[in-house]
């Protein structure tokens, strides 16, 4: 009997692994294509072979003097922008996937929990006060974290927080912070800080430089790597409270660790590219359809798909019309219908089974 089940199980496991490998290969290919295409297209188009050659030169000899215009466009204008977009998309998708896991709810995302609005408040205040660089990131991060803590405090009733209370508290905190952001816009100097705040709030990678990319990268990468290391723990935290505790998880403390890491990621992203909605909810859902719910596969799939999707969206934002379209507009236009579709499928399948 035992031998029989072994034999039956083996091909299933292999086909499961083969399928996962295929999906990851396809996602990586999508990302690579998006990356290269994004370097090539724009008002000044560069052939793909030349772009790849320039990247190779840039990687092997980063301190080389850039003389031709195409070198400068690809390596100084487009490359940092594409890298930053990829990092931000990966971070947002990863945060969304982790958050949906710990809340056991597929509808939460960093922007629903108030992290984004809180971070936006810190950023708007920072811009108004003329702060830039690391201090601005710190402000954005601290206010994002403050929003999360506030949500936690409001939602915690009798020592535990129900999912629905957390989501509603997130809504409350979000609208509170967005009211304050509106107030800041109202009092901001219309000639200097107001346009900067408004443009920044709509989300854009237009101002990306290597310097800004390097400012955001540590938070995004460290937060992302730590979340990725928690991937098996996220499986445990996605179980019912009692089950997770019986398996040895100190659920409350670990959940807050996850929130903290997400605040680092989202704070870093918001600091350099403003609020970008929808990625954190649409990408994890799509990834779940592709690789399943296990966070050990879901997190890397979300990272690659999020990075690729963000690069594509950003490329559209800067090439579709003569002027740049704010990212928030495109992600909402593309994300909302996809999400509506996923939602309907999700509940249809649930009611069907």
């Amino acid at each position, binding site marked *: 009997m*035992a031998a029989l089940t072994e034999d039956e199980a083996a091909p299933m496991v292999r086909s499961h692994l083969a399928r996962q490998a295929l999906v990851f290969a396809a996602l990586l290919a999508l990302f690579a294509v998006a990356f290269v295409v994004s370097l090539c297209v724009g008002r000044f188009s560069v052939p793909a072979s030349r772009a790849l050659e320039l990247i190779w030169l840039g990687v092997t000899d980063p301190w080389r003097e850039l003389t031709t215009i195409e070198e400068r466009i690809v390596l100084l204008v487009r490359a940092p922008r594409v890298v930053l977009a990829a990092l931000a998309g990966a971070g947002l998708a990863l945060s969304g996937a982790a958050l949906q896991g710990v809340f056991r709810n597929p509808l939460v995302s960093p922007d629903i929990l108030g992290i984004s609005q809180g971070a936006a408040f810190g950023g708007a205040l920072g811009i108004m006060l003329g702060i830039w660089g690391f201090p601005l990131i710190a402000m954005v991060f601290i206010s994002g974290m403050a929003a999360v803590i506030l949500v936690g405090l409001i939602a915690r009733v009798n020592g535990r927080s129900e999912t629905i209370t957390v989501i509603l508290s997130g809504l409350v905190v979000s609208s509170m912070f967005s009211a304050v952001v509106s107030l800041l816009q109202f009092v901001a100097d219309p000639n200097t800080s107001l346009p900067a705040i408004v443009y920044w709030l709509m989300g854009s990678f237009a101002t990306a430089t290597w310097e800004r990319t390097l400012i955001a990268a540590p938070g995004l990468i460290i937060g992302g790597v730590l979340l990725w290391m928690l991937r098996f723990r996220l499986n445990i935290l996605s179980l019912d409270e009692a089950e997770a505790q019986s398996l040895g998880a100190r659920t409350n403390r670990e959940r807050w660790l996850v929130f903290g890491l997400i605040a680092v990621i989202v704070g870093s992203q918001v600091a350099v590219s403003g609020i970008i909605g929808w990625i954190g909810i649409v990408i994890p859902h799509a990834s779940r359809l592709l690789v399943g719910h296990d966070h050990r596969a879901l997190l890397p799939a979300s990272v690659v798909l999020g990075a690729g999707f963000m690069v594509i969206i950003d490329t559209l934002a800067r090439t579709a019309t003569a002027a740049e379209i704010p990212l928030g507009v495109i992600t909402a236009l593309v994300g909302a219908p996809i999400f509506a579709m996923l939602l309907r499928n999700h509940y249809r399948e649930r009611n069907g089974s």
Partner: protein
Amino acid sequence: MIGLEGATVRFGSRIIIEALSFSVPVGRTLAILGPNGRGKTTTLKAMLGFQQLDAGRRVAPDIVGYVPQTGTSNQRYRALDVVVMGRAAHLGIFGQPGPEDFRIARSALERAGAARFTDHYFDRLSGGERQLVLLARAIATGSQVLVLDEPAAALDLHNQERLLTLLNTLRHPRDKAIVFTTHDPNHALSSADDALLMMPDGQPPLFGPVAETITPEHLESLYGVPMRVVELAGPSGETHRAVLPAFAGIRAA
């Protein structure tokens, strides 16, 4: 070994359990018996450490193999991945399960009689099948203590028989302390060494070996209906005792 020492739990002014003491050493099995609402679940939660005690203390190892009545099923994991979660306490917060953990998980599935579900999705299994997978997960924790919450409550007769047989196979090596709750005294007779009866009206719970506690008199006051012990021919011919309410078998007029 797992147990409670003088444990009291109150919800507001209502006393759910009071000065409750019992212990289950490794090698013995305890059945917690009683109708609904007498604190069976509270006792179980107190043993597992999910319920704050107002007085007394809990004696338990760090990790207890807990088998909930129904597992979480809003996430889609394969049964094998559910069982390997039992290894979490050994892996720490940043740990990942390795080949050895999967080997342990597979052998736990084997022991729980759930090997055929290894690659099935947990949320697509039936209630009884899920329970076997959750039992495998509890075994995979490596804990010497297994606690099962109403393991037979949602099972049809055939699956009840299978579960009781399974409990006895787990019990047989005498290397675990096993606790389960049930409202059928026959489950205690067939698969437990000791019984804890949650008596009504503030009477102290009765704790002791099955032979002394599962008697018609005790059960009558436990359930509030007359109880009878009958002799039954078992599945393989030998006779054994069963406990039935006196109304069992009354024909409709």
